[in-house]
């Protein structure tokens, strides 16, 4: 019994922490948006840039673009179904096998961001993702 109470207390004590992370690393409220400094590395090469996530009636709309402003990927993520829909992929990456990996990896990453984690490693494909929230002083 004591053990059960202890586990319950531990779980309860972790709840606010999980919510705090979710608030800072994932847009949980309708209309909330978060910007991330993004870094994707694969086989020595990398893509860096900015990602913006917007919560629109519970569905997450996302856009990833490089530092110069060129859009690479636009997607939507349904947290309830853990599904990603790719709306736009830059021509040079627009291949069916890249889309398949992106859909799965972005869904994993979104679910991790919700839980306060900012990194995801696709060990099978040797791709690592890091999305760090930006403290945004100049955004309009």
């Amino acid at each position, binding site marked *: 019994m004591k053990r059960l109470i202890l586990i319950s207390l531990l779980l309860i004590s972790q709840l606010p922490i999980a919510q705090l992370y979710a608030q800072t690393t994932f847009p949980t409220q309708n209309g909330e948006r978060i910007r991330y400094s993004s870094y994707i590395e694969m086989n020595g090469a*990398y893509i860096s840039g900015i990602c913006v996530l917007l919560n629109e009636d519970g569905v997450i*709309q996302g856009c990833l673009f490089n530092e110069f402003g060129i859009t690479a990927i636009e997607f939507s993520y349904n947290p309830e179904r853990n599904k990603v829909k790719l709306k736009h992929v*830059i021509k*040079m990456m627009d291949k069916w096998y890249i889309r398949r990996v992106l859909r799965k990896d972005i869904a994993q990453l979104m679910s991790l961001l919700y839980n306060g984690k900012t990194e995801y490693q696709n060990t099978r494909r040797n791709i690592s993702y890091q999305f760090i929230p930006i403290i945004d*002083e100049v955004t*309009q």
Partner: protein
Amino acid sequence: MRRYIYVLFLFCSVNITLYAQQDDTSIRRKIGQIAHTIKTMQCDFVQTKHLKILNDNMVSKGRMYYQQSDRLRWEYISPYTYTFIINKDKVLLKNNRRNDVIDVNKNKIFKEIARIMMNSVVGNCLNDDKDFKSSISVVRGEWVAVLQPQRRELKQMFQKIVLHFSQNQAIVTRVELIEKNGDKTEIELKNIRTNETINSNIFALN
């Protein structure tokens, strides 16, 4: 009477066309002349990325240094740091995590990026038919050049690129990059200073 009006109308329209062509040519000539005299240029810039799908603007700020004819430093300061330096045949990409130096002679894509960036800074790209088909007009007291990409790689990314020139200085003050998906990035160049000495360390690749 009708015939007279018709002839008058034709005469006027030919005149207007000729005037527009001369204007276009003289503007190009002036921009080209000024571009040759710009040995160095430095400025602050404000980049605004308009995200159509999210109805959002992302504003970033930075600083640019240019030295004729093969050195450029394009540096983002806030809200993220990122530096892109072209120094002769080398390009440095620097972010929080790593520095990468690329030899443009071994990387065709970077060679193209470096060439187009260097050509666009002072407006030399207006006379480069291989990359862009361009047209120039006068809009609200500034020269506006609309560049239509001609190469496949550029066509895949951009609908068009618009360069705004100040008439006084004949130099680029604003750049608009309009992408295929409707997103737009505006780069406004501020506090422009030309032909002042720039420390060579600014273009150092380390």
